């Protein structure tokens, strides 16, 4: 929390920038902005605990206002936490040290749709579904459809290196972002030109993508577009185990086929999410596939993929489970009575690894997480030619808050340690935020020092989202 004099100075200058209607120091607003969708925050709120609050929430309407606000914050050494949709799952927008929450929801304009170059220029506060529906009306898709699409914003996508459920075909946000406008801690506005490729030194866009507000505030982006696919086919294949399913997935990519959706559910996840609607033999693992494109191409891709799956021991379930998942893909994002009762908390560790390590990472993480009495279920959710991600989902319930939060942390500690030990990377798309902050140094190894040095240069006063991405606290 800020001292009274600093806060008074800050408020006076903020009001001069955005006017009286576009900031608030009210505690109620701070309470309502204090959390994102981090399951631990939500569990703590349910348990009647309070979370750290911002001193001021500011709602800028332009890059120029963001720049002025950052200059003021930098002069006064006030922490700044950018907030988009507040849909992140890692506590990335939590104002750990108080200060300013820079809420970008008013910057919600879709500035230009360029059908010639297949690009859309958009402000950071635009809600994902609003962007997707608007480009759909013009015959395009962003190809970026995370489950949080209704709640998350463009700025948040980029700040967390997010991934959509069709990233196997369309790519993650780091592949989809061609141009970027960001504001640094000293208020300077930096623009990275939208070009398909370049050869002019390191790609600085990639420095800012995934920086989670610790290096800059993202204000605008130019994203790739794709023509809406003329057809989308669904196919479901059931394997006797995870191993044979992964073998089939690898073989599909080796054929040069890029399905839009590739999701392999382990036995536990299949039992919970598939066998409730379809007859599945106990212990089997369901693979859900989707193929986008022209009908003739989709037909070929689908039939080759089906043949590969059957050669690897799969039973053909037709479009059923895959299509059902697609039509209900947002349902799992809603809370249930069971998952929110008592001192329950569940979360997902969304790791990523290459194929040579993926199975070992899966088995070892599952083993250590289960030692804490957690129910663990998983699906291999975003797959690529060289490997893919696993959603290691756990759920634990304890008789009291203290043991629930402690168990939650132990599962995370041991799960991430197992992932790193087996050669995986601790996040594919959710980011670091608060949850993974303490593991960042171990994850990045020698490159962590580089990141720290960059941070020291771009944010010498440490005002940018302190406490996140392993960057320590605000002083």
């Amino acid at each position, binding site marked *: 929390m800020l001292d009274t004099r600093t806060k008074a100075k800050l408020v006076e200058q903020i009001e001069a920038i955005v006017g009286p209607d576009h900031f*608030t120091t*009210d*505690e*109620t*607003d701070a*309470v*309502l*902005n204090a959390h*994102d*969708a981090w399951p631990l925050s*939500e569990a703590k*709120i*349910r348990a*009647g*605990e*309070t979370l750290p609050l911002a001193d001021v*929430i500011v*709602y800028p309407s332009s890059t120029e206002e963001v720049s002025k606000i950052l200059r003021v914050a930098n002069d006064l050494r006030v922490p700044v936490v950018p907030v988009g*949709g*507040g*849909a992140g799952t890692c506590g990335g927008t939590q104002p750990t040290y108080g200060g300013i929450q820079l*809420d970008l*929801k*008013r910057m*919600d304009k879709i500035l230009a749709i360029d059908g010639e170059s297949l690009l859309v220029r958009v402000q950071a*506060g635009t*809600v994902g*579904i*609003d962007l997707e*529906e608007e480009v759909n009306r013009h015959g395009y898709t962003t190809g970026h459809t995370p489950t*949080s699409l*209704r*709640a998350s914003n463009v700025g948040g996508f980029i700040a967390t290196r997010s991934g959509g459920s069709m990233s196997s075909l369309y790519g993650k946000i780091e592949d989809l972002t061609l141009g970027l406008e960001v504001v640094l801690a000293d208020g300077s506005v930096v623009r990275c030109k939208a070009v398909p490729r370049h050869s002019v030194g390191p790609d600085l866009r990639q420095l800012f993508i995934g920086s989670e507000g610790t290096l800059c505030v993202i204000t605008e982006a130019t994203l790739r577009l794709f023509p809406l696919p003329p057809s989308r086919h669904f196919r479901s294949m059931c394997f006797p185990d995870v191993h044979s399913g992964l073998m089939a997935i690898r073989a599909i990519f080796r054929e040069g086929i890029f399905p839009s959706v590739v999701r392999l559910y382990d036995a536990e996840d299949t039992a919970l999410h598939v066998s409730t609607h379809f007859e599945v033999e106990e212990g089997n693992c369901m693979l859900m596939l989707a193929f986008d494109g022209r009908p003739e191409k989709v037909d070929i891709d689908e039939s080759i993929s089906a043949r590969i799956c059957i050669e690897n021991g799969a039973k053909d379930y037709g479009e059923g489970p895959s299509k059902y998942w697609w039509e209900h893909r*947002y*349902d799992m*994002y*809603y*809370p*249930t*009575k069971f998952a*929110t009762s008592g001192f329950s908390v569940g979360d997902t560790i969304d790791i990523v690894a290459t194929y040579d390590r993926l199975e070992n990472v899966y088995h070892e993480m599952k083993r250590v997480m289960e030692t804490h009495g957690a129910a663990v279920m998983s699906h291999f959710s975003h797959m690529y030619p060289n490997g893919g991600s696993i959603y290691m989902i756990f759920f634990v319930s304890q008789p009291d808050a203290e043991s629930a939060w402690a168990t939650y942390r132990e599962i995370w500690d041991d799960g991430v340690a197992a992932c790193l030990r087996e050669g995986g990377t601790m996040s594919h798309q959710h980011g670091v935020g608060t949850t993974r902050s303490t593991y960042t140094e171990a994850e990045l190894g020698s490159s962590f020092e580089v990141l720290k040095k960059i941070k020291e240069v771009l944010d010498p006063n440490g005002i940018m989202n302190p406490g996140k991405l392993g960057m320590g606290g605000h002083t």
Partner: protein
Amino acid sequence: MEDSEAIEQLRLCAGCPKMCRHMCPTFLAWRSDSPTPHGRALLMYQDAKGTRALDERAIEVLYQCLECSQCLTWCLPQVDIATMVENERMRLVNEGRYPRGLDKISSAIKANHNPFAEPHGKRNKWFVPTKTQGKKILYFTGCTAAYHENGIARSTVSILSHLGYKVSVTPDEWCCGSPLFRTGFRDLGIEQARHNAGTLNKSEGDQIVVTCPGCFRAFTKDYPQLGIELKKPVLHISQLLEKHLDALRAVDFGGPITYHDPCHLGRHSGIYEPPRKVIERVSGTKVVEMARSRENAMCCGNGAGLRTLFTDQASIIGDARISQAREVGAKFLVTSCPFCKNMLASRAEKGITVLDLPEMVLAAFDSTSKVKM
């Protein structure tokens, strides 16, 4: 709903990653996480759990809700935040902790039986009895049509006469109570309801017709829940006109027509088809649907006291609805609610005409061949 059940519902909404927020009109108007279904639920949850009591700002947030129930359309666990907000408002009013801007509505209704502080004696000034000698029907005009949207009231009587009804209105009509129920002034609303029930039950019409969905919901949902019985069937004008489709005249309106579903008629009463059938019969064309229609229709911005307390934000919502009509190329935006019509017409730009259903139907009756508005 039991307290424990209500807390469980609030817990679900407070623990949701905001899956409906993008559809909430007040989120659109403020672009802040506070006036959202999730925000309201969290405040009520923390209050109920004893974590944090509602303060003045929290109460304001609870009044920054249109009670339009759009969030319910997008809610898988079906948490009815609008009803919970309404119940909370009732408690706040009983404790004297509500925005004082609402006093002008409640005191006007108490003194004049309408929320506009118009003299009660002027309520039926618009009414010219017709000589039709048919089936008797009582038209409960509602405050907005009686005082601010006389065109709707006159059109209604005229159409009903065309259809052979003998229409009457009563000088003892009071506000139906809807604005009071929606803003938490339940006891004063009950006074209005009891008075109206007494008046309507002894009136001579065989059935009651209303043009205002607020009145319709009050009569068909609120009154029965309060144990107040109306002994005659109540029909919304769209339902009545649907029964007489063959008798309605069709003319060329000369441009695309879209329809705005009023929240109280659509989501709250489940009436979607009758107004559409009437529009299609009268215009001879299909309704051009806006991207958000039927269960997913966006509120006009004029509900549950929002326009009274937060005029600028209500206007932003009205403007957005007009934009949605323009996006589908509509030349006519028809609704079936004097309250919505009043709001939308006040925000409509040149090139789009806002009509209430009876006005549209009468325009066809009165037209020679083509309606020019």
